[in-house]
Every structure is written in structure tokens, then in C-alpha cells.
């Protein structure tokens, strides 16, 4: 709960601060303003700041809307044109939006399929990041030790109901609660909906046994606190991140727009993201400040 509050405060500060730094020179100068959205969790806030600040450094006018909502909503806002771009994950896009129920065999396949899904809606998926922000199930070391848990199928050995915490939409996704039951055949699961970011707190308090978390979460920098269960069936797929941009927006903003975003994406490895997420979520630093430092260090600003 505290972490969520900190994250929200940090996000709020970041978005309001970042809007002030806009270069008047560069390829983006004089182009129509862009509304750049993010989903509703800290890593997205961070990604939003990274992309928006990089674009502003090139003279683009960017209206950053953090915390737009879940994939279903934010993607629809994109297709309806009330939003121009947002960072999406390849696996989520191909399953949630593309209703692909088969699991991708590789990151490359996942990206191609996702790109295809977006293409149908007049949306371009730019280059993917090296990092993967995949859902994983995390449990406490005590719980893992007690039931000798190493991978997701091991949960079947738990002789009681396993309370799993996840975002509300997790329940209906194949790459989620649904897949856990169908792909892994787990029958002893009970779903507990939580706001994204509060799963660790739920785990810590013992109100849930397992939590749907993300591979890039800052909390996972320390293996002593949480154990991540392996996913042998690749249920949670390949979740490289890539910005989604409406084709019309790309046409209007010119090639420098996509180039700028791709330059940022190329630098974002899993360890880089974990570090920055840890700064934002655990040390309550502002996503705008963290993004600013990173971009400056890599001469993108």
C-alpha cells in the first residue's frame, strides 16, 4: 500500500515536471503535439517519461498521459484516436488484443505476431526492447521451501487452496489465471484481485500465497526476498516492450519520431529496467528524474 502511494506520488510529480522541458529546436519542432500514454503501473510511468523526454529533446511536443489504464482500454484509446502512442508488450498484444491462444515459440515470433495484430488496426509497433517484462509468479522463500516449489506446475503439490494475487484483468487472460488453470491444469487456485504494485505487499502480509509480478520489478533485484517460479510452458510468453504508434501520427511526425523512440528502446535491458524500477518503486524517486538521468547518461538528451 505504501509502495503504491509512493509510486503514485512519484508518477504524479514526474508527469507534471516533465511537461516543462521542451526543446524548441530539432526535427520535432513545429510538428503537431502528440498524446503519449502509459498503462497503470510504475514501469510504464518510467517508460513514458523515457520516451516522452527523448521526444521533447528532439523538439516534439508531447502530452504525457500516465496511468491511462489496462491494455484493453489503452489499446482501444489508441485505435479510437484519443491516444497517439504508448509502450506495449509483445505477448500481451498478441493474446489480449489479437486473441492468439497459442503460445509463441520465440521472442521474435511474438514480436512479429504482435506487429501484425497492431497493423490490422492501423497501428505500428516500433522496435522491441532487449528487456522482457513478462508476468511471473513470485512466492515467498518460506512458502517455496515448505512445498518445494521451483516452477509453476509445482503449485499443484500444495495441499490447500493457493491464493494468487493479480491485476483484475489477470483473471480473464490466457497469459494469466486462465492459462494457469488450462495450460498447467492447476485446480487449487483462488484469485485475489489487486492493484498492480500491491502484490508484493500482499505477499509480505501473507494475505496471498503467490503473486503475479513482472520480471523487471525492482523488488526482484534481491533473490533473498522473493522466489520466482519458472514457467516451463512459456505461458507468460515473450513480453518485450515496444512503443505502439498510430500510423497517421508517424506520417505526421516524420521519421525522426520513430528513430528517437527506437534509440531509447535499444538501450533498455532487463537489468537496466530493474535498476530504474527499483529507484522509482523502492526508493521513491520520480520516474521523470530517473528517466532524465538515464537519457543524459546515454546522450539522448
Amino acid at each position, binding site marked *: 500500500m505504501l509502495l503504491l502511494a509512493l509510486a503514485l506520488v512519484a508518477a504524479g510529480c514526474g508527469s507534471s515536471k516533465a511537461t516543462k522541458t521542451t526543446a524548441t529546436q530539432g526535427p520535432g519542432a513545429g510538428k503537431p503535439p502528440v498524446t503519449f500514454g502509459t498503462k497503470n503501473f510504475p514501469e510504464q510511468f518510467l517508460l513514458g517519461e523515457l520516451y516522452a523526454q527523448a521526444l521533447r529533446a528532439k523538439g516534439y511536443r508531447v502530452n504525457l498521459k500516465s496511468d491511462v*489504464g*489496462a491494455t484493453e*482500454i489503452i489499446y*482501444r*484509446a489508441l485505435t479510437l484516436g*484519443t491516444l497517439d502512442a504508448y509502450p506495449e508488450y509483445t505477448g500481451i498484444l498478441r493474446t489480449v488484443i489479437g486473441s492468439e491462444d497459442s503460445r509463441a515459440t520465440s521472442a521474435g515470433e511474438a514480436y512479429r505476431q504482435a506487429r501484425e495484430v497492431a497493423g490490422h488496426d492501423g497501428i505500428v509497433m516500433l522496435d522491441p526492447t532487449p528487456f522482457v517484462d513478462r508476468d511471473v509468479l513470485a512466492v515467498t522463500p518460506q512458502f517455496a521451501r515448505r512445498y518445494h516449489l521451483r516452477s509453476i506446475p509445482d503449485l499443484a503439490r500444495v495441499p490447500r487452496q493457493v491464493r494468487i494475487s493479480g491485476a483484475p484483468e489477470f*483473471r480473464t487472460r490466457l497469459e494469466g489465471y486462465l492459462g494457469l488453470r488450462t495450460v498447467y491444469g492447476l485446480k487449487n487456485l483462488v484469485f485475489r484481485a489487486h492493484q498492480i504494485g500491491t502484490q508484493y505487499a500482499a505477499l509480505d502480509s501473507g494475505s496471498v500465497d503467490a503473486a503475479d509480478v513482472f520480471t523487471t520489478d525492482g523488488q526482484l533485484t534481491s533473490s533473498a526476498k522473493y522466489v520466482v517460479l519458472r514457467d516451463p510452458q512459456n505461458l507468460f510468453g515473450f513480453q518485450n516492450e515496444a512503443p505502439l504508434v498510430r500510423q497517421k501520427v508517424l506520417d505526421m511526425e516524420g521519421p525522426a519520431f520513430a528513430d528517437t523512440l527506437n534509440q531509447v528502446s535499444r538501450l533498455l535491458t532487463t537489468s537496466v529496467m530493474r535498476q530504474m524500477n527499483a529507484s522509482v518503486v523502492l526508493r521513491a524517486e520520480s520516474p521523470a528524474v530517473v528517466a532524465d538521468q538515464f537519457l543524459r547518461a546515454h546522450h539522448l538528451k
Partner: protein
Amino acid sequence: MVVASGAFALLIGAVFILLVFAIREQRDSARRAIRAQEAISAGNKLEKLAIDLETGVRGYVASGARPVFLQPYTAARQAYTGQGRELTSLVNDNPKAAGTVAKIRSSIDDYVNLYSIPMISLARDRIDVAKSVIVNGTGPQRIQAIRSQFQQLFDSERALANKRTSQASSRANAAVVIGIAGLVIGLGAVFLLALYLARSIVRPVRDVAAGAESVSQGDLSARAPDERSDELGDLGRAFNTMAASLEQSRDEVAARTAELERSNAELDQFAAVTSHDLKEPLQTVTVFAGLLDRDYRDRLDDSGKTFLDSILAGTDRMRTLIRDLLEYSRVGHGELQCEEVPADEMLERARDNLAARIAEKGASLTSDPLPTVSADAKQLSQVFQNLLSNALKFSDDEAPEVHVSANLFPGEWRFSVRDNGIGIDPSQAERIFQPFARLGAAKEGTGIGLAICQKIVEHHGGRIWVESRPAAGSVFHFTIPDSGATEGQQPETAPAGVGA
């Protein structure tokens, strides 16, 4: 005076300006307080629209995307932009509130564009997904955030409204205090001004009026204060100059009158004394001349007889002269013995006295009926007698014809004695009333008869004059004030013959 009026006007002006300012500020504060209230009311409406948006979306999704449940949302979506604009216009005088409103409007825009529109679209296509998404949807959070922004706005606007209201009421109080103070000062100034006016204007004017009153009652020594250097001082001085000049004139007239009276009295005294003292030696001359005539006439030669006759004639004339002189000086002395006397009788008495001379001249004397007047009987008959005697005296060779008439004029009777005698040169018409003014043609008399007539008539309050031309006869008119005794006795116009 001018300075006081100016100061007073300035004071009133200053109070008025202060009052206008206070009232304007009060009105301004009140208007701003009302504006803050209006902003709160507009904010409430906008907040309700935001809630309608959220409940609309929620109801629509919960109902399985039944369009009827979207109605509150649709209505709110149409209205919120206008309502937001109204709210912005109501808070544009308060930068902080304007910032909050801008944030609120942007948040509602975000809610609509980035949440409700995608959510409704999703509900239409995939209601099951929409239902699961909306459970965690950021809608309630967004609306909650918006509502807390509204709360912030309301708190600050309410505080502003309270501040402005208390400001307005304190300014209203200030206006009342200024108004009352102005009224008190104004009344005080008016009172002082009135006091000043009473002291400096009313009093001097009243002094002058009192002076005028005294003067009109005959006290010409009255004076008004004249030491002031302004118009009131001028008025006082003008009044004093007038009063002084009046007093001087009156004194001069009085002195001249006294002088005249004294000289008249001396003259009368002189005439009386003189004539009386003259009688004594004249009597001696007359007696001895008479003795001389009786005892020694025969012894005188013709020259001596002629001389003696001259002496006798001289003494005779001297006696007549003295008698007339005494008569003249006596008339006008002492009280008139006035009574209602019929003029007819007086005329008759005069005629009796002159009967011998009338017969001698063969004169015819006629008269109209004459009125009864208030007069001294003896003196009135004297006037008639003198005028008749005069008419007989100045007749030419024809038999004299004399007619006496009387006419009533306003306030007086005019008696007219007309003759057919030699007449008088108009240039002499004034002179004949002077004592001893004998005209060249005079054949007899002392020349004092008309003077006596004038004295008597004037003593009765009347006038006497003559209309005449040489050889055309004369008309002597004299007036006696009408006593009213003969009212209605208008004399008949037809002359009634009186036998001569």
C-alpha cells in the same frame, strides 16, 4: 464667508467621494463574493456531470451495454465542456483557482478521452472483457481524483467567498460609518454656518431694519453698525448717510420754519404795535385839526383852508390805513370761531354793510343759492364784503354787475365772485394779494382788502386766486373745505336773482 462655503463644499465633497469609494468597494467585494458562490455552484454542476459520466459508463457496462444506461453519460458528455468553460470564466480572477479548474477540466477530458470512450467502445465489442476491466478500471480513481480537486477548489472558493463576504460587510460598515460621520459633520457644518449667518448677516440686517423702523417713526438720530468692511458694512454706511442727510434736512427745515414763524410774529407784532402807537399821535392831529377846522376856519384864507382840508383828508386816510393795518394783523391771530354758517347769510350781511355804496354805484348783485360751510362767520362775511367792495371799486363807467356762485369740488366748496369791471393784467394776478399793493388804477381804499381775504381763506385751509383780463372783468375764486353740512344741497345751476 466664501472661505467657509468653500471649506464646507470641500468637506461634503470629500465625504461624498469617500462614501462612493466605500460603496464601490463594498459592491465590488459583494460582487466578487457572489462570483465565488457562482463558481462553487458551477463547480458543483461540473462535478455532478463528472459523476454522471462515471456512473453512466459503469451502468452501461454493468447492464451489458444496454444503450438506455448510457443516457446520463451522453447527456453529461454533451454538457461538460460548456460547464467547464463557464467555471473557467467564473474563476479567472483567481489564478490559483484557475489553475485548479484547468487541472480539473484536463482530468475530465482525460477521463472522457482515455477512459470512457475506450471503455464504451470495448463494452460494445467485448462486454465480458469490459466487465472484467472495469472492476479494476481507473474510472473511480480518476473520478475520485477529480472530486478531490473539486473539493480543493470548493474549499478555496468558499474561503474566498467568505473572505469577500466579510470584506464586503466590513466595507459596508465602513460606508455606513463614513455616511454617518459625513452626516454628523455636515449637520455640524450647517449648524455652524447657520450660527455664522445669524451672527454676521441676519443681525446686521436686523440692525439696519431697526434703524429704518426708528427713522420711519421719526427718530432720525438712529444709526446702524457700520464698522464692517463687507457689503453689510456698505449697507450700514449707506443707511447712516441717508439718515444723517434726512436729519440735517429736517433740522434745516425746522430752523427755517422757526425763523419764519418768528419773523412773521415779529412782523405782526410790529404792525399791531405800530398801528396802535400811531393812533395816539394821529388822534391828537385829528382832534386839533378838527378844532382848527371848527373854530378857526373862517379866519383862514383860501390857501390856509386848502391846507387844512389836506390835513383833514390826510388824517382820515391815515386813520383808515391804521384801522386796516390793525385789521390785517388781527386776522390770523387766535382761534377761529368756526361754526356751520350759511354762506347766503354771510353774503347778505356783507351786502347790508355795503348797501350805501351799492346804491350809489347803481350796481346789480346776484347770487346762486350758497351752501352752509364750517367757517368763522365774521371772517367769512368780511371776505364777501372785501370782494364785493373790490368789485364795486374797480368798475368802469357802466353800472357794476356782480354775481356770486358756489360749486362743490372734491373736498371743498369753490366760491366765485364775478364782476364786469376793468379787469386785471394777469401779470399782476399774484401781486394784488400782497398788503398795500395798490394798483395804479386804484381810486380809493388802502389796498389791504385782498391781503386780508387771502389771510382769512388760508387760515380756513382754502385758497384764493383771480382769473381776469383787462377790460373783461374778473372772477375771484376762493375755496372753503367742505364740512359735509350741505351734502345733497348741490346748488342750483340757475341763478336766483337777488334784488339790488
